[in-house]
């Protein structure tokens, strides 16, 4: 089973999304692929991984009661 974990935080490091992702990945079985989604150049590498993935998990911050705009465009 292949899990794709996507960290959608715009911060480079020390983000809460990254912390939650590292915490949850301890309890996930099977193959884990960790990706970062920050701008448009990251899209293609994520799409390639999604071709044969079984599950997709997004870790994202809440911006003004909604999804951040850079994740919304994805």
């Amino acid at each position, binding site marked *: 089973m292949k899990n794709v974990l996507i960290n959608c*935080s*715009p*911060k480079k490091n020390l*983000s809460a999304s990254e912390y939650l992702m590292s915490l949850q990945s301890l309890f996930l079985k099977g193959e884990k692929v960790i990706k970062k989604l920050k701008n448009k150049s990251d899209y293609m590498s994520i799409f390639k991984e999604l071709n044969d993935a079984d599950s997709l998990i997004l870790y994202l*911050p809440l*911006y*003004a*009661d*909604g*999804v*951040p*705009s*850079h994740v*919304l*465009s994805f």
Partner: protein
Amino acid sequence: MKVILHDLNSNFSEKLFKKSDAVIEADGKYAPCQGCFNCWTKHPAECFIKDKLQKTCRILGRADELVIITKNLYGAYSTEIKNIIDRTIGSSIPLLTYRKGEVHHILRYGVHNLLKVLVYGDITKQEKETFVYMVKRNVINTGYRKYEINFFDTFSELEKNI
């Protein structure tokens, strides 16, 4: 002060400018929010990214009436509009208060009067419910007294109502 925030093309900006005090055109030529919170701490109500949205939260903060014209995107604002809303959290301050029995940030420029949202494009029933719920939350969070939401299925219907 009446402010219009729209994601239509630039031909509409002149038309809308006659009916309002300020028009903000969401053309997507700006960077998304980086989540640094410098607009709260280091330089209040000013973004560290030097582009056309650097001081937009001062305009949106002073608006009595805000009109948002947006395309429907899975029951949310379009990317360009959401980007502007993300970048304008400087219109509140980091300290907290109670508003309608909930904890929210204190508003830097005080309470506003009316938030009006005009949505165009195809929309399902479920997306409509999501949109109304999100606008209700935004109204409490950004401190508006009243709100209005209008849905238009086609672009020509919207043009008549502008």
